[in-house]
């Protein structure tokens, strides 16, 4: 990876992070970078968002795992 690309990537990530902060998503920089990477790989943003939402809620209800009969949206 040449330094030019690296700089570009960093700056882009900076901007994305900034945006994410403005929108109060509560994502940290690392998580965001992963999400960006995944979406660059063609992952569906809707699905990614669902993952983030579902898994984030895990901690408070970690004792009770999500019901398996969750319908597919």
């Amino acid at each position: 990876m040449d330094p030019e690309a690296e700089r570009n990537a960093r700056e882009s990530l900076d901007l994305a992070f900034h945006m994410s902060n403005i929108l109060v998503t509560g994502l940290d920089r690392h998580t965001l970078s992963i999400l960006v990477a995944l979406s660059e790989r063609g992952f569906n943003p809707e699905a990614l968002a669902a993952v983030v939402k579902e898994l984030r809620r895990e901690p408070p209800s970690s004792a009770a795992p999500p019901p398996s009969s969750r319908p597919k949206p």
Partner: protein
Amino acid sequence: MADQLQTLDLVKELVYRLVVPSDRNSAEQNQPPDLEKPLKYAIRILNSRMTPSVAADESAIVESIKRLLVNEGKSSDALTFADMYMKLSMKSGAGTIKNRWAVLYLLKVISEDCRKEKSSHLYTSTSSNGLPLLTNETDNLRFFKSQKTIDSKGKGGILMVSKDPESIREIAIREFADLVTEETEVPEDALVRDVLFACQGIDGKYVKFDSHLDGYALSDSLIVPRATRIMVRKLCELGWLFRKVKNYIFESMEQFPAEDVGTVGQAFCAALQDELSDYYKLLAVLETQSLHPIPLVSEMASSGHSGNYLSLRRLAVWFAEPMVRMRLMAVLVDSCRVLRGGAMAGAIHVHAQHGDPMIQDFMRRLLRRVCSPLFEMVRSWVLEGELDDIFAEFFVVGQPVKAESLWQEGYRLHGGMLPNFISQSLAQRILRTGKSINFLRVCCEDQGWAEAASEAAAAAGTTTMRGGLGYGETDALETLVSEAAKRIDKHLMDVIFKRYKFREHCLAIKRYLLLGQGDFVQYLMDIVGPELSEPANTISSFKLAGLLESAIRSSNAQYDDPDVLDRLRVKMMPHGAGDRGWDVFSLEYSARVPLNTIFTESIMARYLRIFNFLWKLRRVEHALIGAWKIMKPNFISSALFATKDGSSVMSQFVWISRRCQVLWNEMNHFVTNLQYYIMFEVLEVSWSQFLEEMDAARDLDDLLAAHEKYLNAILEKSLLGEASLHISKVLFVLFDLILRFHGLVDRLYEGIRELQSSLWKNDSRGRSKSKLKSNNEVSKSGQLIGEGRKALTKFAGEFRKKMGEELDKIAKDYSSSLGRFLAELPVQLNVDLKFLLFRLDFTEFYSRLWAM
């Protein structure tokens, strides 16, 4: 494969970071197996076919984010965001984010999720004690779902009400729906169907016609909310109106052949019927719609299908326009019930004066239909002179009359049938045009008008076929009428002037009836004079006719058109006991069809009055001339002055004869000036004015008016009018005095002549008492001759005295009458009469005389 692995690693990392964000340090070692489940879950989600329902539109998503931020009151953030997005989009080359849309979308969804989570937590905490608690989970799920539907509709996705969770609304709505169903016995769709029935004039199951209320209503026994009841009543107004209109049409059609509804009425019904068929179409559409079930409000909001169902409220919206129309039709039906023909069209036209373009349109359509028979009548009347008006609807009414009064009385305007969109003047023109055609056809037996009419139609751009005109094309109508009027009037004038020689006849009347032909009048006066002195009942009109004939033949009148001379007749007026021929003799000019339209009987009677006056004036003049013939210096009068010895007898007459001369001069002055005035100031001036107007006249009415004016002017100025009744009496007294004077002069000079001859005999026969007087002289003076000079002198004295007295009386009467006449003259309104006064009293002799 490596790529796959890398992805898996990334996912793992993500799950890890998400699940253990807070106590990362402790969890790192303690709960690695815990990650297993979330990871699987995450992979399942990622592998699912969940797709964003929004098309990948970068700018749209940016816009929606900005809007979101602005809505939350963070406009500065929105600006920063926009700025950063600019920067991001400007980046290019390796390492930059390629799928910017995906990243933005991701951020937005996560952000929204976070926000909702927060608010829902807040909500549950505050409301958990009052309202049924919903599990957080389902709640969230619902949010998720609803969010999606909203997104699927609005591009870019706008957040639905975030503070009012939909479930609450939904529950409230459901409860409301339950409440409503409890309260109503009748389902709404049944009511809708019933209302639709009612609007076709049919009783429904629940909505029935109530004759007491005079309208459709829900029966009282049904339990329905008050609002619904009112709504149904309002909607059913349409049904009531429909019934009214329908009944009217039905009744009119029913009685059509029997009673006279009239063509306009039929057209009105047909137009209404057409409007109703439109209305039926609407009702049919509505009826199919009413078959769809009415969804609940909640279903409407969530299911998203707007649906073609029909509720009472929707019906109210649907009915808004037909209601206006139907109301209008009902009003028209009401106002036209008793009207027919033109009056009906006029009444409808009044309603067309409306500001609402819809109503205007509607009325225009209706009126076009309604007026078509009327305009058709106008067209055929103006172009063909046909009055095909079986039901008496047209504003021109014809009545059977004799040919000569066809123009004046044959046709007239019927004010009541004149619709007010046709102006009075236009109506007059229409009337006249058709009348002209009929006049040409009936009186003139002329066929040339047909050409003129078709020419007019071509010029106006309308065909002579039916249905060329319509309501709202008043301009076209006006053009047609004026074109037709122009041509037909011109044709009529041509016929009257060229074929029937109106001008020539007028001239002939002026010449013979108004005594314009001097030599003829003089000659006639001379030869009929002796005849007319006889009592009226002994005069034969045949003899007079013969005399008239010879008068014509011996004057310049013989060169006139034989047709004109044929029409000149002698007429004896009905006479009383003491009338002389002078009083009853008159000339007559017979005008035949079609000219008797102009020279009607009443007009001819006025001509007769003028003739009588002029005839009298001529007679007076004639008498004066006769008097002059006797009085003029001749043998007798010269002898009067020449006698010396007879001076005692004859000289007495010198004085009286001189007085006669003076009086004669005075009378002559008066009569000459009056004659001059009548002939030149009255007849000729009026005639020349009449000629001008005759040339300018464009139709028969103008011509009639001009002729009327001409006659009136003559009557007025000749002191024959109503206003100068008094002065004309004085004038006739003057005439009588002059005639008496003539008689007096006649007798006086006769007497003088006899006296003279007897004196002369006495002288020549040497006072012989021989009775050798001429046997044929049977006068009393002749008998006196024998009684000698003394007796003669005595007789002459008596005679002179008698004559002198009579002359005094005449002179006195004359001067007082003339005084009255001159005093009355300035009072007359006519300006020309002032000139007569001026002429008579030129030297101010009279005015000074009376001033003394």
